[in-house]
C-alpha cells in the first residue's frame, strides 16, 4: 500500500523539551537520508499518552506509558537516546512494517 500523507512521528521524553527535541533532530536526519517524508513532533510523558501518531519513538523509561495510547500504530523503544545506529535500525524497521500493512 502506498501512502499519500507524510508519516506522523512523535519523539517523546519526560518533559518533552531537551531530549525529545534532540531525538526529533536525529530522526529527521535519518528520514532525510532515507528519503522518507514525515512530520516529526515532540511530546512529554503526558501528551505521548494521548496524541495520535504513526510512530512514537521513546526510551524504556516512558515506553509503558506510551503503550496505553491506542492511537499509536508503532512504538519504537530505544535503549539509548544517543545511539544513532540503533535508532536508525529500529525506526526504519517500523516504517517498513507500516508500509507493508
Amino acid at each position, binding site marked *: 500500500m502506498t501512502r499519500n500523507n507524510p508519516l506522523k512521528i512523535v519523539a517523546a*521524553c*519526560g*518533559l*518533552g*523539551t*531537551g*531530549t525529545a*527535541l*534532540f531525538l*526529533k*533532530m536525529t530522526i*529527521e536526519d535519518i528520514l532525510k537520508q532515507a528519503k522518507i517524508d514525515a512530520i516529526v513532533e*515532540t511530546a*512529554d*510523558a*503526558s501528551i505521548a499518552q494521548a496524541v495520535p501518531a504513526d510512530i512514537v519513538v521513546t*526510551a*524504556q*523509561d*516512558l515506553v*509503558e*506509558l506510551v503503550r496505553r495510547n491506542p492511537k499509536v500504530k508503532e512504538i519504537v523503544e530505544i*535503549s*539509548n*537516546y*544517543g*545511539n544513532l545506529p540503533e535508532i536508525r535500525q529500529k525506526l526504519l524497521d517500523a516504517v517498513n512494517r507500516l508500509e507493508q500493512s
Partner: protein
Amino acid sequence: MAIVSFLQKFMQEPALFLGIIALAGFLILRERIERTIAGSLRTALGLLILSSGVNLMVQALLPLGDLAGKTLGLPPLKIDIGTSKIIAELGTQIGLVMLLAFLINVFLARITKLKYIYLTGHLIFWNAVIFVSAFKYLLGLDGLALLIVTSVFVGLYQTLQPWYTSKFDLFVNENAGFVLGHSASIPVLVTSLLTRLFSANGTKKGRSMEEIKFPKALEWLREPMLMMAATFLIIYIIMAVLNVPFVSEKAAAAGKDPAIWVILQALTFAAGFAILMVGVRMIIAELIPSFRGIAQKIVPGAIPALDCPLFFPYGQVSMAYGGLIGMLSMMVVSIIFAGFKYPFFIFAPTMSAWFHGATAAVYGNKYWGIRGAILGGVVAGALMGLGQAAMWPFIGFAIGDFFSWASDTDYVIWPLLIAVVARILGR
C-alpha cells in the same frame, strides 16, 4: 516618525521581536518557505503561551507563599517584578543573548580544544532569562552593557559547563560521544568527585543500584505534570490545615468551598506548568535545529552537550530512586529553613529537584553503587535548597516565582558569584 515609533513599539514586544529574530534567522539560512513562516509564527505564539502559563502558575503560587509565610510567621512574600514581567520587559535582550551566547560558544569551540556545543534548547532559553536578570538586578547593568556582559558570561558558561563535567559524562556513558549540557552540573560535579574519591576511582563500586527494583506504585512519578500536581497538593494541604482561617478567607473571596479551593489551586499550578512547557517547546523547536545547523557547518568534530535524560539509560533504577531522594531532600531543606524561621520561604520545586537528583544518582551509582546513588540524590536536593536560600535575599524580588518551579542549582549557585562581584564593586 509615526512609522519609527510604531516599529519601536513592535520591537519592544518580546513575542513579536523573537518572531522577527526567528524570521531573520530562517531567511539567512535559506530555509524552505513553509518552515520559515511556520517557525516565525510558532516562536511568537510560543512566547505568548509561555507567559500565560507563568501567569497561571503565579496566581496559584502567591496565595501559597502568603499562606506559608503567615503560618510560619515569616515576612510576606515579596516578588515585585516576577519572571513573566522580566520576560516581557527584557525579551529583546533575552532573545539576543540566546543568539550571541550561542555564537560565542560556537566561536570558542572552533578556535580552542573545547569542542562542546551546548544544544539543550529549553536551557539556552532559561540561561538567558536567569543571567540577564542576575546581571541586571545584582550588578545594575542595562542596555548594551547588559547585553554584552550577559552574552559573554552565558557563552562562556555554555562552553565551560560541558567541559568541567565532560570527564565524568564520558565515564558514565562509556564514551558515547556526547556530554551533559544542563543546569544540574554542580551536583553532578560534586557527586562525581565525591563518589570517585570514595570508590577509589570506581574500583570499589560495591552493589549497584541497578540490581534492585523500583516499586510499580511510584511509576506515575515519571509524569512531571502529575508529580507537580501531587506534591503541590500535599504542601498546600499541610499549610491549609495549619492555618484554616486564612484559607477560608481566601476561598470565600474566590467564592469557593475552602477544600475545593485548595485542590484547584494546586492543580492550577501544575496546569500552568504544562502550558509553560508547551510555550518553551514551541520556541526552541524552531530555534535549536537552526543552531545545530550552524554549529555543524562551523565546528568540525563538535561534541554535543545535551539534556540530562540522555544519561538515564545508564542507570534506570538509580535515576528513579535518585529523583525521589532529590525531591525529599529538597523538602527537608525547606522544612529545616522554616524551622529556623529563615525570613524567606524556601520552595521545594519538585520537578527540578527530581531531574537533578535523578541525574546525580546515575553518576553516583556508576562510581560507588547504591551508596553513590543515594549520595547523588541528597547532594542535588541539598545544593538546590541551600542555593535557593542564599539567592532569595539578592534576587528573590525579581525571579522568586521561578524558584517555586525550577531553582536549578546552576541558577542559584553561579549567580552568587555575580552577587559577590557586586559586593566587591560596592553596587
